[in-house]
């Protein structure tokens, strides 16, 4: 019996090894939301980022004047977008929400030191962290629009989950028709699902972050509607959005130090820690 087992083992040891290693990988994969695993991830990316930044400083060509102009551009873009939003917004709704106009956008410039480009796991490491007043959940953008959200922060670096990450879901709206929905990456395109078929959404409509979002401030541009698909029942449809930002070609970004709404804070809905 022992000999038979040994023979079988010798004949299929590669497969046994593969099976064991794949099972271990899958077990670890299922534990990825475990706080301990998240802690390991945080330390790992922070230590790796140090080396990545050294390499980045060698390959990058920094231009401070260009950076300043980009900040200015991004601020103007946010202001223009807010104005556009206000023009469409109902006065009654504004007074109801006591929504305050603010042009004091605090943008923290950052450079991307490492990227993980994948069809479902878009991640950046940027060279700003806790010491630059970065906090978890702060939106990351450039002068064209939203790029992602800070998901992990270490002293000097932050991990950004981009729009091309399947786990990032953001509340979005089409201001023209006031349709609200959740935008997410389907592995191929950005999609807002479960939109009523009767909703007045057309190709070319702008999609921006929604006031309903507890993470991202409203009116940050996301993209343009490029397609509308109806589901099988015909009652609901989904909107395909082309993002304004080509996420994977971005080199410099800004982290938006969010001015939180006191009302949302008081409701304990805001995910940003105080």
């Amino acid at each position, binding site marked *: 019996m022992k000999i038979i087992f040994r023979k079988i083992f010798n004949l299929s040891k590669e497969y046994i090894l593969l099976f064991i290693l794949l099972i271990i990988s899958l077990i670890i*994969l299922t534990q990825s939301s475990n706080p301990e695993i998240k802690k390991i*991830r945080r330390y790992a990316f922070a230590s790796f980022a140090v080396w990545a930044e050294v*390499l980045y400083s060698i390959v990058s060509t920094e231009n401070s004047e260009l950076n300043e102009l980009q900040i200015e551009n991004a601020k103007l873009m946010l202001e223009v977008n807010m104005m556009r939003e206000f023009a469409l917004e109902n006065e009654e709704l504004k007074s109801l929400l006591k929504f305050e106009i603010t042009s004091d956008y605090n943008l923290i410039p950052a450079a991307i030191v490492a990227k993980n480009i*994948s069809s479902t796991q878009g*991640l950046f490491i940027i060279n700003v962290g806790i010491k630059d007043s970065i906090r978890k959940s702060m939106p990351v953008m450039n002068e064209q629009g939203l790029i992602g959200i800070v998901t*992990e922060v270490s002293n000097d670096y932050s991990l950004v989950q981009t729009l091309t990450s399947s786990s990032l879901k953001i509340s979005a709206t089409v201001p023209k028709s006031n349709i609200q929905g959740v935008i997410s990456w389907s592995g191929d395109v950005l999609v807002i699902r479960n939109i009523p078929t009767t909703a007045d959404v057309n190709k070319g409509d702008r999609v921006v972050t929604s006031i309903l979002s507890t993470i991202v401030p409203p009116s940050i541009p996301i993209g343009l509607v490029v397609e509308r698909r109806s589901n099988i029942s015909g009652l609901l449809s989904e909107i395909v959005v082309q993002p304004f930002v080509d996420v994977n070609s971005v080199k410099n970004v800004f982290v938006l130090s969010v001015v939180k709404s006191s009302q949302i804070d008081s409701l304990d809905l805001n995910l940003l820690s105080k």
Partner: protein
Amino acid sequence: MINKIVFPILIALVLLPIQLVVIPLISISNIIPNIVLIYVLLYSFRYGQIAGTIFAFFIGILYDTASSSLLGSGMFSFTLAAFIAGYFYKEDFKDILLNIHIFIFALLLSSFIFFLFYSVLGTEGIIVESNFSFITFALFSSVYNIIFALSLYLIPRNKL
């Protein structure tokens, strides 16, 4: 021991930051080659299926932690890709390089498996539009990977 374990790990540690910092600069619409994968596959071609699979597993851990991707997705994909590459193992590594058709086929197959599983396992709670998009992505990435891997032929044969 040094040639088989220490040097390869050191090389992989050098390739890892290059993969995440420099290689994204040459991405073409979300598609990039993966030099760490190329190295892991070459290791498997050179040292065989068992050594290649174990090496790939540990490189997968490093890759997942350094890139902050879902822990386990890289481990799984690297391990499986290296196992497949191991089928093309030749005692003399130069034999694989001499037969360019086999070399391209082996790389294409292993890279395709890697990119496919890495994408699929990285999906967190999404409704996949069509599995075809993952297959197309994996295929294009594999082709880009091969173009990159063919640069090996620029290295003089006696140095390999």
